[in-house]
């Protein structure tokens, strides 16, 4: 058997590893934009090959698949999905684990996702508004933030998925700091406008969304378009630095377990979340008339207004979240892939180890906002010492050069995973491994020591309990998902009705 993967991050490294470990003993082939040293090694050992290829160039990707004659393709990251790599594979008769470009719209366009949710009146959605220009956004905010209170506390996002970049959350509840926050909102909107110029082929540029608070978690699922099977929940940590401070990143580390839920999410909330993800898969399939074949994930939050709520959708596994789930996956990944391809996922019994996992990413200084600073530093890793600490090491944004040296690509260098029965212990074991990852030229790296700590977990639980009280209250009152504003001389204003009117007249 021959399999081929696409992508070159830590997520792809563990996908490659799980494919290679299959009882089918496949030859593993791969295409990536950098030579991920971990995947290169797996390919070599399995008798396959690794080649550099622009992963969004579907022609080229498929050419490799055809050349090698692979049995199926597994796409790791989102961008190849957006650019139709799965579509092209299928067209050429190669089955593919990956959402088609039309289906992947749920991830690519945050505005499309929200429209879909409102059109089908699905659960777990947020108020939103899209704009073409910063000026338009600023004017709207100015004009309506008195009437529509949700506009005071907003998340400003690029309307298209842009590698997790560009999201700002502006909580403007403190009237005395309003002018500061307002100025910042406008500045960011104009920054977004400029940033989005590099992305063509999308109508909306700036997305303004209702700001919510609560514990975040990722529900990753396998789907064959008929059923959606949930994996254990994972909680990622998006802030770049300790104490949940700093810029949004792709994720600095994540935790999972024990069991399929997390200590701060209930089984009911898991079930509800799975229903929500399932409903989105059904809706988008209905919308575009194609079968969803691969991975779908909800990046979610328990919110006061809606209970379990979709923040974003992924048309692929999360990174680092992939590590938490795949490392504990007991079922043969290739069996799962074939059950997806054959549309027989409902028959598949997917099992995971019952333990907790902690993953921490190590990034070069400069990540995520100043990538030029973070690039081109030589990496020195002692993989054996990390293994001896009982941890697993996965290469991320790293490029294996011909001379054997490994150079930073600008994003997270690697991710270290530890399984245990206690978060704290897993976290501490990873901490021991941190000194084994260095940059040869003395440039700094950073990671988050607090991921998996009991303090951080206690805080997540505290937030979850508070927000749970609020949405349960709404549930009991029968007003979950309802928003109310009052305008003197007019009466009660329903922002949902206004949103629907602006969408469909």
């Amino acid at each position, binding site marked *: 058997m021959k399999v081929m993967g696409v992508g070159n991050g830590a997520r792809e490294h563990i996908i490659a590893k799980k494919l290679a470990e299959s009882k089918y003993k496949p030859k593993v082939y791969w295409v990536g934009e950098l030579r991920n040293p971990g995947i290169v090694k797996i390919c070599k050992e399995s008798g396959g090959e690794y080649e550099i290829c622009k992963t969004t160039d579907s022609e080229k990707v498929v050419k490799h698949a055809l050349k090698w004659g692979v049995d199926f393709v597994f796409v790791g990251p989102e961008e190849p999905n957006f650019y139709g790599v799965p579509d092209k594979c299928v067209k050429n008769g190669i089955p593919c684990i990956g959402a088609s470009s039309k289906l992947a719209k749920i991830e690519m366009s945050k505005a499309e996702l929200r429209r879909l949710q409102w059109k089908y009146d699905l659960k777990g959605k947020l108020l939103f508004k899209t704009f073409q220009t910063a000026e338009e956004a600023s004017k709207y905010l100015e004009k309506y933030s008195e009437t529509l209170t949700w506009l005071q506390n907003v998340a400003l996002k690029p309307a298209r998925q842009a590698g997790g970049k560009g999201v700002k*959350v502006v909580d403007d509840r403190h009237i005395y*700091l309003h002018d500061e926050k307002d100025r910042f909102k406008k*500045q960011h909107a104009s920054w977004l406008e400029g940033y989005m110029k590099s992305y063509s082929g999308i109508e909306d540029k700036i997305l303004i969304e209702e700001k919510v608070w609560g514990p975040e978690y990722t529900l990753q699922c396998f789907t064959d378009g008929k059923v959606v099977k949930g994996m254990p929940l994972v909680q990622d940590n998006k802030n770049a*630095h*300790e104490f*949940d401070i700093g810029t949004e990143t792709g994720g600095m580390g994540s935790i999972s377990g024990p069991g399929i839920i997390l200590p701060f999410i209930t089984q009911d909330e898991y079930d509800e979340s799975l229903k929500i993800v399932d409903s989105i898969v059904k809706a988008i399939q209905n919308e575009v008339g194609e079968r969803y074949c691969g991975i779908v994930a909800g990046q979610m939050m328990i919110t006061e207004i809606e209970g379990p709520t979709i923040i974003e959708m992924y048309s692929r596994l999360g990174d680092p979240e992939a590590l938490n789930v795949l490392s504990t996956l007991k079922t043969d990944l290739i069996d799962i892939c074939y059950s997806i391809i054959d549309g027989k996922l409902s028959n598949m019994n997917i099992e995971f180890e019952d333990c907790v996992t902690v993953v921490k990413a190590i990034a070069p200084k400069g990540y995520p906002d*100043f990538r030029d600073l973070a690039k081109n530093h030589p990496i020195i890793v002692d993989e054996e010492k990390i293994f001896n600490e009982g941890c697993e090491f996965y290469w991320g944004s790293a490029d294996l050069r011909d001379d054997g040296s490994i150079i930073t690509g600008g994003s997270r260098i690697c991710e270290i995973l530890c399984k245990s029965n206690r978060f704290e212990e897993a976290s501490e074991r990873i901490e021991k491994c941190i000194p084994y990852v260095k940059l040869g030229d003395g440039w700094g790296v950073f990671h988050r*020591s607090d991921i998996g700590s009991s303090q951080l977990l206690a805080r997540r639980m505290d937030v979850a309990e508070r927000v749970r009280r609020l949405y349960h209250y709404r549930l009991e009152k029968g007003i979950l998902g309802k928003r109310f504003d009052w305008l003197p001389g007019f009466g009660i204003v329903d922002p949902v009705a206004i949103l629907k009117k602006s969408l469909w007249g």
Partner: protein
Amino acid sequence: MPGIIGFYPFGEGRENWNACRFLYYGLNALQGRGQESTGLSFFTKDRLLNTVNSNMMVEDFFKEKAESLKEGYIAIGQTSPIKNDGVIHIKEPVELVCVGDGKPNLHSDKIIAFKIFSEKLSQKIYELGDALKATKSIVNEVSGGYSFIALTKNEEMICGRDTHGVKPLEIGAIGFDIGIVASETAALDVMGAEYTGSVNPGEIVVFDPLSIRREICDKSNKKYCSFEYIYLARLDSYLNGISVSKVRENVGRALAREKPVKADVVIGIPETALAFATSYSEESGIPMKIGFIRTGRYTRSAIKPTQLERLTGVQLKLNPVRYSVDNKDVVLIDDSVVRGNTLKSTVLDLKRKGAKRIHVRIGSPALVAPCPYGTEVPPRDELIGGNLSEEEISYVIGADSFSFLPITKLIECIGLKKSELCMKCFGIDWEVE
């Protein structure tokens, strides 16, 4: 005991924040820790460190200095109970500014002690070239009870606590943009930040534009200032993860259980003792009434430098509500007693308004020794609790009975071990024991 704050934004567009605006509200929130002087330093787009200090309250300071506080995206500041205190600005060898709470054991004078501390820091950073390593070595070397926030010309914000963590230091975040360090979590709330953790005893945290690094000194063991919980900190703050409000609720209950007394009404002396009075009332079943109404803006009378100012503060602050006490037996609750003068004045006032009996209960143990870490407590021979028995004090202040909170109860109320608290002002010297 100044209130200190540091404001540090991250990411693209970070230069667009106006740090001083945030510090204005944050420092206002910390004014309970000191009202004699305000100081602020900020880092500008052209990479300059500017310092403004003045003997003014926060509000006046920002009004007066508005013109010079318009720029700067990183800033540190303090509000201090000491005149001529302010941000220390060291020019060489590494230019840095520093604010501090408590006192490093480098000099008997707080201002000088922090000046020496800042000079050492500057020198060490110059020698080692790494702010985290340098600061760690200084904190390892310098004993005392202090927390500090420094900002260097290299755009690094350094904060830390002494190895015993005597003085508090709390951390919060705003969205994906800003990190804030402050003496109390109430300041984080007011600035719209979410509390995300406490700096540990002996821990150094260094913010630079690309990372946050932290390390803990080798021999760190906690000795949290107990006076913070019962007096210094705001009721709405959490210090070291412990709710100040919870401690004070426990104190009121403990007072009610410890020396029960028959009375008609419980009166708390604003502001701190109101929390004690509330839970004293709940525990004893004696109703609580509002006993005093304040005139003028909020000042913390006990931390005023002179006796005249203190008494003026108290008298202006505390006009009794006669109806609440007239012809009644009163339990009067205060937070602490230093010399007893203000309390004496208050008791006399209430009796003149018709109170029959007054039983004074204090929500803290007797202050018997000055604080070596800068909290403004008079010398030993000026402390009434260190010189007279409870019965003697009741005669002096004209009360019908008088009692302090026993030290053992204080420890229970905070919920930590005796060995985890600094109680030097209550006569327990952990360095001797």
